[in-house]
């Protein structure tokens, strides 16, 4: 590969200037003339039938312009998940915009739009709802028992989805084992905590055409889901891409209640309508699914897996939505495919309860799997006195193996061994003491965990959108506009994609501008999710930029009197390959390509040297050719106070085969931010609900604690193993999700190393530590 000039450089984010001076581009700032403010009336009961809703008083309140109740909205059952088509048979269509049965505390039952927010709030209090309260169930174990309250007719025993995967003969495999280990691990409900609330503005015109601004991770998914729920053709719905959104992490990957409600309120009132969720509403909108994972693992004396079995019970809450996909992703990527083993079986079910609906969250089933698998491997190693690094390497996939999910793909780059060996060396793993051997009340321990297999996209699940497209247009000042549907939610997508365009065109990164886009003006792109943007959208952007470059050289060839193949672009200037004798700036080529055929000058009319006039641009729309797996290991040192039970992570090192690093600053940010989320998951975050009423008890940041700058370790190192993936744009693979998948098991293993006691239930709070130490 020739030398790269933009890819791999520590370039500034193209949005950073705007964000440090006020950040005007967030959807929360969208305001339109005549805009109304909407509010949702939410059920106080976790399970109830609505007998009657009286909105007469609310409608009479001055300033109220529209009121919605279940009988006034389309009753089309839909699923809300952006990346799966509406009619995907793997999805469960159990959502309604407003239903006459509520299944979790906080489910909307009515909505109001008014000229002022305060009027809308007052109007909600004037709506009289009579509920027939039904028995509710909040625990997935109880929900599956005979006689439990039935939440949905279509789901006997409240099982929404039941799945099983495997290969080989697992019982045979257990017979060949020298040892069999059985353990159960439980994860909790945690929230993505995107900082910008879910917010939208919907406007309608007199023909009923809708324009939508929303804090969303996917404009095309929002268009498709919203149109379906409203019973409209998609051409009636236009979604405008936000310049950037204030975080998402998977929490803005589905149609909310607010978008269809705003659309209907706008159609009814003829005015734009805005709804911004309160933080409490955000907390009950989306969360990582709690999963109970029972593992049964057979190993030889030397640590070779002979059989692996897992059963996962995932709590999906009141609706199936993401739960129907998190479940198989968890089973496959979080368990089944992680390590080599001849006989493997996984069974799982997603269970309805009357709790809030689970959603997408970075890692999408992976963190729940990794906490179980990586904790248990350490337990096995401790028991059998095996080296946990050697154990994992013995069972790991190898470079050039067929991809375990799709044998049409190859693990053409796969360096878990290097992640572990170099990571261990840099972290001084060899200095690790035996578990619980420290003296004093504050004990230190080190641990690590892997995510051996992950995705650079969606791995080829049959029912999931994966393709991307882009338009790259050159401007007369030598800059390039990149039009693409990809939403930057804070992971640096705009920087990465700009760098790829710049590298391909031969210009500097700041010569690439991210253009306005909406669902009408740009090709389809799958969502910003699944660690897919750098690889999948990156490839599409590279092809579009390459196509623009090809056209640029064709035009320039007329100026040089040479073949396009003999030309190159360096630092924004076209020249004969390797020659500095004559250099023409891109700006000049672009201008000549678009200038009128005759230009008027002092010397009279002159013909321009370019015969075929036109804008220089390139387009693409393509599906990813492969799905190379990143590989990840993370080492952590913690200090456990055995008097208070407090755990303090002291330092972390994240070793990741990422392929080539396109944007180092952004990549480090992914690692460091992923650790914050993973550490919160491991130690403190828990979205608690009242077990009697089902109402959220942790609906603000005073009760839902996430790590602040004080709790975070001062040292988080990123060690990128740049394996140069041949199918990736400039050799890149993926990064985002594993950064959050590995911290929890790494911290759990480090805690064990510190105190010699194992906690198998997250979060590992001081109470659990003290209880495990026999002090409570």
């Amino acid at each position, binding site marked *: 590969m020739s030398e790269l000039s933009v890819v791999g450089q520590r370039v500034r984010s193209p949005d*950073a200037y705007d964000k440090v*001076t006020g950040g005007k581009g*967030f959807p929360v700032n969208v305001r339109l003339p005549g805009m109304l403010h909407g509010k949702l009336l939410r059920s106080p009961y976790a399970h109830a039938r609505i007998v009657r809703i009286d909105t007469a008083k609310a409608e009479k309140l001055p300033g109220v312009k529209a009121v919605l109740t279940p009988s006034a909205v389309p009753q089309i059952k839909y699923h809300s998940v952006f990346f799966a088509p509406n009619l995907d048979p793997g999805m469960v269509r159990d959502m309604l915009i407003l239903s006459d049965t509520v299944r979790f505390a906080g489910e909307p039952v009515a909505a109001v739009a008014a000229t002022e927010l305060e009027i809308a709030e007052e109007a909600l209090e004037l709506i009289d709802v009579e509920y027939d309260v039904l028995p509710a169930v909040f625990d997935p174990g109880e929900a599956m028992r005979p006689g439990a309250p039935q939440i949905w007719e279509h789901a006997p025993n409240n099982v929404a989805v039941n799945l099983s995967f495997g290969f080989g003969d697992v019982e045979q495999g257990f017979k060949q084992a020298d040892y069999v280990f059985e353990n159960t691990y439980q994860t909790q409900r945690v929230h993505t905590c995107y900082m910008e609330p879910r917010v939208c503005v919907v406007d309608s015109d007199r023909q009923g055409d809708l324009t939508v601004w929303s804090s969303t991770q996917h404009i095309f998914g929002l268009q498709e889901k919203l149109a379906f729920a409203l019973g409209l053709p998609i051409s009636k719905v236009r979604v405008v891409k936000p310049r950037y959104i204030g975080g998402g992490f998977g929490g803005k990957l589905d149609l909310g209640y607010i978008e269809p409600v705003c659309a209907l309120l706008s159609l009814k009132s003829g005015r734009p309508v805005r709804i911004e969720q309160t*933080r409490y509403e955000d907390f009950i909108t989306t969360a990582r699914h709690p999963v109970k994972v029972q593992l049964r693992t057979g190993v030889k004396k030397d640590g070779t897996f002979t059989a692996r079995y897992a059963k996962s019970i995932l709590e999906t809450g009141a609706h199936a939505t993401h739960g129907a996909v998190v479940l198989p992703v968890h089973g496959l990527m979080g368990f089944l495919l992680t390590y080599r083993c001849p006989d493997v079986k996984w069974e799982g079910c997603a269970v309805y309860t009357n709790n809030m609906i689970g959603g997408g969250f970075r890692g999408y089933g992976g963190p729940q799997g990794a906490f179980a698998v990586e904790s248990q491997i350490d337990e096995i190693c401790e028991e059998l006195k095996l080296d946990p690094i050697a154990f994992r390497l013995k069972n790991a996939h190898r470079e050039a193996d067929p991809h375990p999910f799709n044998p049409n793909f190859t693990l053409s780059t796969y360096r878990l061994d290097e992640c572990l060996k170099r990571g261990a060396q840099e972290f001084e793993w060899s200095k690790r003491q035996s578990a619980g051997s420290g003296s004093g009340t504050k004990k230190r321990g080190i641990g690590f965990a892997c995510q051996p297999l992950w995705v650079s996209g969606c791995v080829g699940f049959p029912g999931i959108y994966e393709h991307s497209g882009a338009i790259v247009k050159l401007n007369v000042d030598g800059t390039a506009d990149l039009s693409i549907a990809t939403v930057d939610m804070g992971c640096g997508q705009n920087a990465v994609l700009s760098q790829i365009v710049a590298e391909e065109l031969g210009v500097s990164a700041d010569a690439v501008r991210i253009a306005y886009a909406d669902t009408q003006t740009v090709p389809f792109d799958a969502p910003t999710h699944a660690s897919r943007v750098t690889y999948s959208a990156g490839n599409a952007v590279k092809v579009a930029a390459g196509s623009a470059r090809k056209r640029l050289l064709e035009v320039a060839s007329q100026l040089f009197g040479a073949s396009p193949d003999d030309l190159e672009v360096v630092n924004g200037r076209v020249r004969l390959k390797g020659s500095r004798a004559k250099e023409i700036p891109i700006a000049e080529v672009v201008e000549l390509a678009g200038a009128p055929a005759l230009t008027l000058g002092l010397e009279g009319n002159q013909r321009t040297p370019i015969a075929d006039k036109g804008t220089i641009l390139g387009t693409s729309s393509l599906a990813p050719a492969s799905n190379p797996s990143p590989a990840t290991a993370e080492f952590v040192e913690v200090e456990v106070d055995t008097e208070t039970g407090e755990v303090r992570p002291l330092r972390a090192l994240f070793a990741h085969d990422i392929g080539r690093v396109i944007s180092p600053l952004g990549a480090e940010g992914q690692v460091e931010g992923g650790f914050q989320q993973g550490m919160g998951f491991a130690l403190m975050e828990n979205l608690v609900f009242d077990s009697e009423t089902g109402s959220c008890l942790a609906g603000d940041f005073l009760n839902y604690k996430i790590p602040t700058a004080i709790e975070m370790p001062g040292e988080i190192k990123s060690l990128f193993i740049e394996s140069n993936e041949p199918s990736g744009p400039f050799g890149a693979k993926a990064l985002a999700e594993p950064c959050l998948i590995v911290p929890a098991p790494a911290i759990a293993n480090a805690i064990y190393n510190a105190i010699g006691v194992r906690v198998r239930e997250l979060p590992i709070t001081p109470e659990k530590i003290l209880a495990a130490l026999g002090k409570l």
Partner: protein
Amino acid sequence: MKQVINLELNGERYEVAVAPHATLLEVMRRELGLVGAKKGCDTGGCGCCTVLVDDRAVYSCMTYAMTLEGKKITTIEGLARDGKLDPLQQAFIEAGAVQCGYCTCGMIMAAKAFLLNSRSPTEAQIRQAIAGNLCRCTGYRKIVEAIGLAAR
């Protein structure tokens, strides 16, 4: 009942009618078109709305506008002078301390208040100074680094 008050914001005077319960955050975002301070929680839990009142960092979502007559308010919009970024703004860009950016304005204002009284802070002091500001993207490391850069 709304009452007309005078606010001094970024060196300019604004005459604005506010309700007794209106917070500074609401007044800035809804009445004055100043959208740099962000609403992340509205309950004093995230710090996205941080501004300076008489050079002290406050959560504008927890501050009634009516209490601010005669006080000097500085927001992110007032930080850059004559088109030149404040060293903190510059450092946030250089250090890669900006990801989604939603916490950024509040974070910079909290750091600004801190640096007004602290010339050569330690890392621990910087971390303490932004403990009331949540960020979900960066893990804070580059933010701490940026504030250290700006202090120098």
